[in-house]
């Protein structure tokens, strides 16, 4: 059965040359803070491996040592001597302080200091409004006037372009059902919910073209609710903004009510 898997035609493409660890590596991290998430993941993994190895040593070791052939008479104990209670409690406390409180503290610090540490109002950031719908992503940039939901806004469909090296702030909402804006390469996702604004910010580092997906089940074509993320250098981005703002001035039709799905930035 295993040979079928290894020899099946789908595998005999380029992926076959890929090593196992390369295959299961998460997508390339292109954000400034994604490494915090990766680091915590790896830290938790090392702790987990340590404790799971202990469990396995107990499980398999005891199973071997105390097989009834090797150990015909069981020890009579209720596990209520002082030492035994101390050991069991010790394990509980060791796990709690060793792993849990540690990772909670680290995660909490990252959460407070980075992920919910919103850029200040006067900071120079790229602002994007996102409206999710079945099954597409609408993005909106304030046009030349710097205000959202006005005639000169730049809107794109399934096409998000941001500069590297600058904070990007998103406000998002959904038109119909709950979606979730998922950037695998930035390790981030936030739900887009009808009737309430949700927010996210990140800063990217590496120019290129990446995937955006919807992570929350949103109907039959959920799997195809994909968009492309283009990360530009600052100069490329400025050029693109200039061009698309001009294009928007010429082509936006102020008579179309459905062009104004945005909202004043909040």
């Amino acid at each position, binding site marked *: 059965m295993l040979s079928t898997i290894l020899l099946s035609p789908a595998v005999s493409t380029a992926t076959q040359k890929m090593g196992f660890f390369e295959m299961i590596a998460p997508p390339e991290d292109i954000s400034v803070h994604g490494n915090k998430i990766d680091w915590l993941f790896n830290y938790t993994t090392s702790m987990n491996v340590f404790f799971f190895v202990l469990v396995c040593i107990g499980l398999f070791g005891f199973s071997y040592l105390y097989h009834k052939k090797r150990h015909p008479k069981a020890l009579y104990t209720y596990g209520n001597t002082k030492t035994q209670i101390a050991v069991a409690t010790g*394990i509980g406390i060791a796990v709690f302080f060793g792993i849990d409180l540690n990772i909670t503290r680290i*995660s909490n610090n990252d959460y407070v200091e980075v992920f919910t540490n919103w850029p200040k109002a006067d900071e120079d950031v790229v602002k994007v409004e996102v409206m999710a719908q079945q099954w597409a992503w609408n993005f909106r940039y304030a046009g030349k006037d710097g205000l959202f939901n006005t005639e000169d806004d730049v809107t794109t469909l399934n096409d998000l372009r941001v500069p590297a090296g600058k904070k990007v702030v998103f406000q998002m909402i959904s038109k119909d059902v709950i979606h979730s804006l998922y950037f695998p390469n930035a390790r981030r996702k936030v739900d887009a919910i009808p009737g309430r604004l949700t927010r996210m910010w990140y800063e990217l580092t590496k120019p290129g073209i990446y995937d955006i997906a919807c*992570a929350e089940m949103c109907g039959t074509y959920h799997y195809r609710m994909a968009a492309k993320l283009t990360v530009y250098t600052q100069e490329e981005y400025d050029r693109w903004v200039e061009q698309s703002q001009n294009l928007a001035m010429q082509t936006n039709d102020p008579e179309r009510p459905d062009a104004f799905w945005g909202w004043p930035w909040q």
Partner: protein
Amino acid sequence: MAFYEQHIHPKPTNFLSKYIISYDHKVIGKQFLWYGIFFLFVGGLMALMIRWTLAYPGEAFPIIGSFLFPETGGAVPPDTYAMLFTMHGTIMIFYAITPILIGAFGNFCIPLMIGARDMAFPLLNMLSFHVAVLSAVILMGSLFTPLGAAAGGWTSYPTLSTLIGSPGMGQTLWTLAIFILGVSSTMGAVNYITTIITLRAPGMGYFDMPLTIWGLGLTAVLNAIFLPVLGAGCLLLIFDRVFGTTFFLAGAAATSGTGDPVLFQHVFWIFGHPEVYILILPAWGIVSDLLSFFARKPAFGAKATALSMTTITILSTLVYGHHMFTTQMSPLLTQTFMTLTMTISIPSAIFFANWLGTIWKGSIRFTSPMLFSLGVVFVFGLGGLTGLYLGTVTTDLFLHDTYFVVGHFHYTMAASVLLGGLGAVYFWMPKMFGTIMNEWWAKVHFWITMVGLNIVFMGMLLIGYAGMHRRIFNPFVYEFTQKLIPLNELTTWGAIIMGFAQIIFVINFVHAVFFKKEKASDNPWEVGTLEWTIPSPAPHYNFDKIPVVKCGPHEFGNPNLTGDRDFQYQTEELA
């Protein structure tokens, strides 16, 4: 300690009163067992179709595909795929695991293990099964409605589960079925709690109960408290769908007034997180007992295990918010739920240590129930530890709604509960049906299942870590998932191995129930709890005289044993 006189039911005389409208808790337990095994098959088949689609999207499902999906030549279409994973989750949780662990073993074990003649409310018990059947009929019927069954995931988040996202009749019927099943389970839970409180045999204190009863009792408490919450949520959802209310509609989706879709998530997960423990607590209890029975040694720290399970029961009600980190709750709530979630690991680690303490210096008999129990220790270790990544908010921002979550909850809920349930079937088989299942095939079944399920669920964890998200019909439309094709294929083959291994079980089970001539002895496993003091299979009145309990359930190798056995029946006084 029994509060009142227990009468002996008249012996059933005809087929109808014996097998269909029986008040006997053992028959109701068996009814739930067959019901659960049937749905385990249905849900398992759906799982194979899901896995097949993930590995070979657009290719015909082997053998039965062309019969089920003739219009696509046998391949699963995307909308059917959404129905499949919705129904797979629903069926496995509510119609397979719940009936087997809680319905079958709850009914069968509670009166027998506490020395009662029946449940406190036999009629309610019978109705609970019949209502469950009604619910199952509605759920299966929804598969045949014009727009198909519910397709919004087993969590059925609005507004996808309102008319905005699923206009068909299927979603309404799904919600109704879950509501009715909630009624059935609540009836069962009330019954279990009352029975455990009022019908324990004279002399049986709470700590003299086997840990199985602790697990089942705590589950019943959670069920009685939280199923009504789910019921309320379902009812509001039905109102939104049928009567045009807007509890969960907002934004452009709401034509008048406005509600909040996130409200449903709160209601759902207040129930949904305890539900995880509702499913796992009976398995924990059973495993704690079986480890002691087959290590021929008292359960290590039995009191601590019971109290840890109680602590977890309480804590499980306070942590549900970790399912909703990505909805951007207030940071204070997020931090609170994260910290509370982490405290669950203290009691978990303690009873985990107790499990290992139980087999430490034991004299282990590797029977099939013991193998399954040790298997639970292994897979639950993996399941519990992978939960840590999802409890911390920052890693959850990446892993939420990926296959990592799927792998994690399959390890905790599917793997642990399935192995625990199968161990329980092998163990109580003699008392239920009077025969013992073939041990050799049981062990073969165990090892193949174990290999298969670890390939599947470990595969899911790895795929999820690599970023692949859940509930997608064709994962390979994205560039970042292209490289995961081989791993998805491997995972699928693991599922196929695991699925086919269950044929061994079914043949073994059916053979033992219907065809095996050789009768099991009254106490084949040499265990001292009350159900083993009576003949196999248990007579319809259980105990001709209500037993008087004189010692604990795990007196193995006690120096004060009175017989020449290495265990003491709970009805016998220690010297």
